[in-house]
């Protein structure tokens, strides 16, 4: 395994246990030809179990959705074997086309062409609502 041996790359840490594969597909990591490691159910001091994703190349990623999934996720940028930067992904103002509105009375339920758009309405509590019907986005589902 490449764990601990990344020279230049990214470590996405503190992913809620069991969610790494979801992020893997959302971030399209399957399309990369660099090394990618997924660690499931790693023991985490304060929060029980967690998942970790390690990417062995300094690529550009769109971190927007990470904050939506869990604001505790951390992104570590590794340069020359050392941690160069660590941050929590910020909450995007809008999430377009990634979260589906589940309200059967929403216009998106009958017009397939409409993009599903969620807007951040409460940053403090990281609440997103459907732009059309104002239904709250369910956390933990993309």
């Amino acid at each position, binding site marked *: 395994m490449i764990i601990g041996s990344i020279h230049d790359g990214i470590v996405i840490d503190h992913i809620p246990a069991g969610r790494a594969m979801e992020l893997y597909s959302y971030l399209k990591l399957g399309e990369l030809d660099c090394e990618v490691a997924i660690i499931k159910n790693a023991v985490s001091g304060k929060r029980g179990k967690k998942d970790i994703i390690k990417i062995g190349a300094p690529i550009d990623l769109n971190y927007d959705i990470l904050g939506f999934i869990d604001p505790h996720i951390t992104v570590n940028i590794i340069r020359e074997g050392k941690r160069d930067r660590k941050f929590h992904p910020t909450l995007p103002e809008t999430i377009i086309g990634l979260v589906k509105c589940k309200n059967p*009375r*929403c*216009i*998106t339920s*009958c*017009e397939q062409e*409409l993009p599903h758009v969620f807007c951040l309405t409460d940053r403090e509590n990281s609440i997103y609502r459907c732009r*059309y*019907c*104002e239904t709250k986005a369910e956390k933990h589902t993309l």
Partner: protein
Amino acid sequence: MKTRGLIDIAELTTQEIDELMLVASDIVENPERYAEKCKGKKLATLFYEASTRTRLSFESAMLDLGGNVIGFSDAQSSSVSKGESVSDTARTVACFADIIAMRHPKEGAPLVAQMSVNIPVINAGDGGHNHPTQTLTDLFTIKRELGHVDHLVIGCCGDLKFGRTVHSLVTAMSRYPGVRFVFISPDELRIPEHIRAEVLDAKGISYVETTSLDDVMPELDILYMTRVQRERFFNEADYLRLRDSYILTQEKLKPAKEDMRVLHPLPRVNEISIAVDSDPRAAYFRQVKNGKFIRMALILKLLSENA
């Protein structure tokens, strides 16, 4: 600049609401001054579900402003039944009309329309979601009847769980100082937690919940009655029992203040006995009239803003 219609009453500032009410009052006093204000303009009423009352109110409003009206009154009789998207219908209509009033069973449809066109779109009810001109009508009626919309005790009675008119009224009235609420409903139809938490508690507004209309009648300035709708219930027996739990009669109205006013978004089923209609406190038919005047003020505002 983005075209501005009215999708959600939250888009209006309190000052704008007050201005709309002022204009509407002026229309009541001086209708002739407004009789040609919208000459040569067209309102399209796109009603994907029947709501005769609301549609006639919009159409009368435009006609009384000297404008014209086109549109459809249910989805079956239009190209919509062939599966055209809201966005395409709106774009087509925008080639003919200057302003749209849209009613749709799906939540958010009028917003989709507004995002597709650069003429104003007024939400005339989108499912159980928003119906801003109903709320404006309610506010304007309170203003006309009592002279002010602040420092009032507002009683809301009936289906407070599903009744969107009540949720919108509570949210809108909570902008004004000194307003208190009394919620009268059976336990099954109490005002939802999110209204209590996000509107009332968040703004520190005092309210009480009760199951007895009689107990609170003497303290009310406004009694807002609502319909208990059959389609909200799975079980006919529950519907009938709850429908009949709060019926306003002359007898029940006796202890109310002289200048208390009864409002109802109409149509009623049986929640207000017909005998109450002749009581001067019954304001619900005047409320219908007010709806036309406030819609006139709104059409004027939106057309002049987007001229």
